[in-house]
């Protein structure tokens, strides 16, 4: 499996995701935002961080960068795309994923381990998980409050495009177990062709027992066919 990680000025989880991908036996290449060609890849990752300082709006400037045209082309031809945190924000700015990420409900940056439930384990990104499996995973964002219009929300549900929802330790999905105010506790969604996943939590932070746990491992192993 070949992967590419797009590096924007201000990306800061690029090394973390590269380490995780290599650990999971991906052959990874880092791609600088000023480049106009993508190496041949099965998976493109847009990492977390503060691309272009998140000035204007999170992900807004990155959504208009040179390399992003190539990402859009690759996405349209079926390449797998994973956007994590700022990467998710960038994907919504490009229109590859619908909806938007508002400021957290409490108006503060939140970094902590939360629980998410695997709602759809039938995607290329999640097939190694069990349905309704509860994962403990780290979040770190200021704008993770996912919002979308009612029509799209119905579509997300009907077409089974919601992959992860925030829940509590016991799997309860409610307002109390929602860290950032996202609509219906959504933590990660697919596009309708199901080749693009955007998620706020950081699976790359959960692949090493001594640092945290290994709850992120199956996301990467799902991608390895």
């Amino acid at each position, binding site marked *: 499996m070949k992967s590419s990680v797009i590096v924007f000025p201000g990306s800061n989880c690029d090394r973390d995701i590269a380490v995780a991908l290599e650990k999971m036996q991906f052959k990874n290449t880092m791609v600088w935002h000023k480049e106009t060609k993508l190496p041949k890849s099965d998976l493109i990752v847009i990492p977390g961080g503060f691309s272009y300082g998140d000035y204007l709006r999170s992900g807004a400037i990155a959504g208009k960068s040179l390399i992003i045209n190539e990402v859009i082309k690759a996405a349209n031809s079926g390449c797998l795309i994973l956007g994590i945190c700022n990467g998710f924000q960038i994907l919504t700015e490009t229109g590859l994923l619908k909806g938007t990420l508002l400021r957290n409900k409490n108006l503060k*940056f939140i970094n902590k381990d939360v629980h998410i439930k695997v709602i759809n384990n039938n995607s290329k990104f999640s097939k190694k998980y069990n349905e309704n499996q509860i994962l403990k995973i780290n979040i*770190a964002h200021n704008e993770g409050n996912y919002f979308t219009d009612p029509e799209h929300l119905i579509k997300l549900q009907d077409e089974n495009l919601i992959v992860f929802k925030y829940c509590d330790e016991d799997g309860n999905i409610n307002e109390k177990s929602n860290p950032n105010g996202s609509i219906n506790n959504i933590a990660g969604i697919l596009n309708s062709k199901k080749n693009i996943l955007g998620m706020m939590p950081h699976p790359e932070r959960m692949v090493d027992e001594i640092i945290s746990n290994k709850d992120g491992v199956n996301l990467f192993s799902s991608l390895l066919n």
Partner: protein
Amino acid sequence: MKINNQIIEKHGLKLEEYESIKKLLKREPNLLELGIFSAMWNEHCSYKSSKIHLKKLPTKGRQVIQGPGENAGVIDIGDEDAIVFKIESHNHPSFIEPYQGAATGVGGILRDVFTMGARPIALLNSIHFGSPSHIKTKSLLNGVVSGIGGYGNCIGIPTVAGETKFNETYNENILVNAMAVGHAKKNKIFYSKAKGLNKSVVYVGSKTGRDGIHGASMASAEFDENSEEKKPTVQVGDPFTEKLLMEACLELMKDNSIISIQDMGAAGLTSSSVEMASKGGLGIELKLDKVPCREENMTPYEMMLSESQERMLIILEDDKEKEAKKIFDKWDLDFVIIGKTTDTNNLTLKFKNEVVGEIPIEALASKAPLYDRKWSKKNSRKNKINIKSLKKIKIEDALIKILSSPNHSNKSWITNQYDQSVMCDTIQKSGSDAAVIRIHNKDKAIAVSVDSSANYCKSHPITGGKQIVCENWRNLTAVGAKPLAITNCLNFGNPENKEIMGEFAECLEGIKEACEFLNYPVVSGNVSFYNGTNNKNIYPTPVIGGVGLIKKLSQPISHNFKKDNSIIILIGKTFGHIEQSCFLKENYSIIDGMPPEVNLVNEKNNGECLLKLMNTNLILSAHDISSGGLITTISEMALTSNYGAKINKPKKLTNIFEYFFGEDQARYVIEIERKNLPKVEKIFKENNIYYENIGITQKNYLEIQDELKINTKDLFKINNEWYNNY
């Protein structure tokens, strides 16, 4: 403009200092030159009141690669690895503009670390606020915390540990100290000393604006009711640009093109150029027309005194400009040759083809004023407190008071606003005795902690100074690290007041004694005087930041109880020292008496023995005993775990409050498995360590025989309420 007394005073210079300037120049300075003198001669940059005392601190050791005097200290952690670290204050700007003040404090200390060739791997902070009920406290707390988070989160360095304290002494002068820790290759450390004639002096990073002019002078004076008006002297931070600057510098450092490098911190272009030249025994000539400016029509005076952030000065090897510029172009940063090194030993400033200022470098550096200020010894006679004369209370109520107090409450409201996990090497984060950070791709880790004890230092500065060094040393030991070296941030009041100067001298005496005994040298630091408003000085608050090494990484020891029915042991002697304790403060509002005595021999023996036990894998959990005493420590071990404890009453008939709440030093609580007790006791006996077998862990309840029984879930709740309700 003719220079008069009013202008001199406005520059924070004394009239006699102005006389020395004239003597050194052999003429009157012009306004630009006066500004430069004021930037270099103020307390913040010159250390004129503190230098004599700082010289006494131990700064050497086999582990030390670079001690004080550089951008940051450097220590050896084995193999080819070095750790670069420093702490710095940003108190004055943070009080005036909390968000930007705190943010640029973080930015400044990060630059100090990556300037030396290290990739920053951890941020820490020590923040002190006034009483929670003071009108300014809430908004200052909010601003400072979001400022620290805003900068660290964006640049992507984890903020892993810190301390937050409230005390009315900081009502009108908060403290914001930020510490950064970086990892470098031992043979790839970069210094600020210039070398060689006619070498290019390059300006890189952000453009220069009008922000922060006279920032360093502001930090060298007390506040008064007009302090708000000083807002324009606070710099504005841009963590995004700092991230680019960091990556660009680290990329350039892979090659051999840098002779010397210095960040533009306090006093900006002035201090960076003077420092590089003075260390190299050279002159430096700057063409100010070349300085990249953010605003139009900036004068040489403004350019030289601006404290705009995210800028660096680099002296390059010959013929390296093209390659170097390529890197900065890649990162969209300015890269401009603005001058060269000379043999004149002068700082020469040219603007529009004219020399607009010329000052001998030594007049600004080595000939800057040095004061041996008068100081007086602290009167240490105190009233004895008789605990029996105080109103009777229940242990449970006293404990609840402490655990729910602002200073002891769980701080996740703060730490959840910091990204503690980015870089994926944070093994243990805030809330532990010390944070533990893995060295990337290696099988070893460092432990880091920051500590202070202002009440102890106020009561008896020598003991207080010793105590914080010991507490910091203990915190690293409690997670299984061998403490290696410290950085210190010395926050004090007005040094022209001889009692304050006495607090300074005596705290330093204590720090020195402890550091020497523990082989725990000071490798970097910062002095912040004039913390006070309208003649009201803050309590002496030296802050110690320590770094220790965990040589072989297994799971580090954390402080929460791990198992049911294991043995709890108290290491160290309990005398029941209750004066200056958190117990008296929270329950009786008494802040009086002497701090607990510090016995360095016990401190060292107990700590080293604990490390031995840890190396033989005999310990399940460990926690150092500090503010709040034994029972607070045990509660903290129970709070975050599924287990409580059943604790025996002391055998010898001492006062039970003194036993459980006394703050005697050199003590730890450890948890071990029952079957390991003989082995552990044998090691204690061989090493002559005093210990007490005080109880066992149990499910659900924290219990003291006949005195206390409380559900650990309730304890957790009690401990987590304050911030959320504030």
